[in-house]
């Protein structure tokens, strides 16, 4: 099953989803498609002026182009998602490395899709980490059962 992960470039979530036999939908796949095309118009990530136009599918025209450009990467992943694992308030998405409005929009769109979602927080202790891994494994196992039905 295709599982959307948030943060979209998370190593831990991507690894755990793959480990438990599902396909993670991560932003790296979308970037890979862009940068491995023969002509690179706008390095490094090849986000061209066309991308904010693609983002119009997800956000209105008055929304900043940065949000729409990011949605051109995240949107196709959301549309492919059959389930989602979301870590709430990841520290790394705060500040200049993230975009709060895009994060809100991604969370809204994934919840509006009515697919199985697992909500978590990043662990801060060993006990919490055990619970974190256990919950993810149980969630992914239950998805496997649904698919077999």
């Amino acid at each position: 099953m295709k599982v959307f992960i948030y943060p979209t470039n998370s190593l831990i979530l991507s690894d755990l989803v793959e480990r438990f036999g599902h396909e993670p939908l991560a932003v790296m796949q979308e970037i890979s498609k862009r940068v491995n095309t023969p002509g690179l118009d706008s390095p490094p990530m090849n986000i061209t002026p066309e991308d904010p136009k693609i983002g119009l599918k997800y956000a209105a025209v008055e929304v900043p182009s940065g949000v729409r450009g990011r949605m051109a990467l995240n949107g196709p992943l959301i549309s492919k998602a059959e389930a989602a694992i979301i870590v709430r308030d990841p520290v790394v998405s705060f500040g200049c490395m993230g975009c709060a409005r895009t994060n809100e929009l991604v969370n809204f769109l994934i919840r509006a899709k009515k697919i199985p979602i697992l909500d978590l927080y990043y662990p801060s202790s060993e006990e919490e980490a055990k619970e974190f891994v256990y919950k993810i494994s149980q969630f992914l196992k239950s998805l496997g059962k649904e698919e077999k039905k």
Partner: protein
Amino acid sequence: MDNITKMIVINSSKVLPSDVVIKLYESNADVMIKETCFGVMVSGERSVVDKLLSETRKIDPYGIFIKERGFAPGEPNRCRATRRGGARPGFHMLETEEKLLPQIAQGLRALDKGEIPPLKMKKKKLELEKLMEIIKNAEVS
């Protein structure tokens, strides 16, 4: 042909990136391998890379973590050597999550042993009466 790049992040007391690189070379697969400070990057055809890395994970299942990478190793637009140093975008995420990897490894060990973690009690919000009482007690008469 669908080419992908995957990065192996090693957080193990038993395995070094150089050990993994030797194992990868031994496999004689048609892939490009680059050893880095955090682990190894492997680039090649999807089916070959996936098969090779699922075998590599078995060296230390609790110390090897794998994710896909958008850029190929040594990509001039992203490589620090051609961009005059500095942290590459994506480094901060890796740095944040690497701190959690030992705990995640403990979680995976516990899962394999069949441990079921006790469910946490949800924290209740402070009731208004209780808060009023605290304020009253704290007031200096």
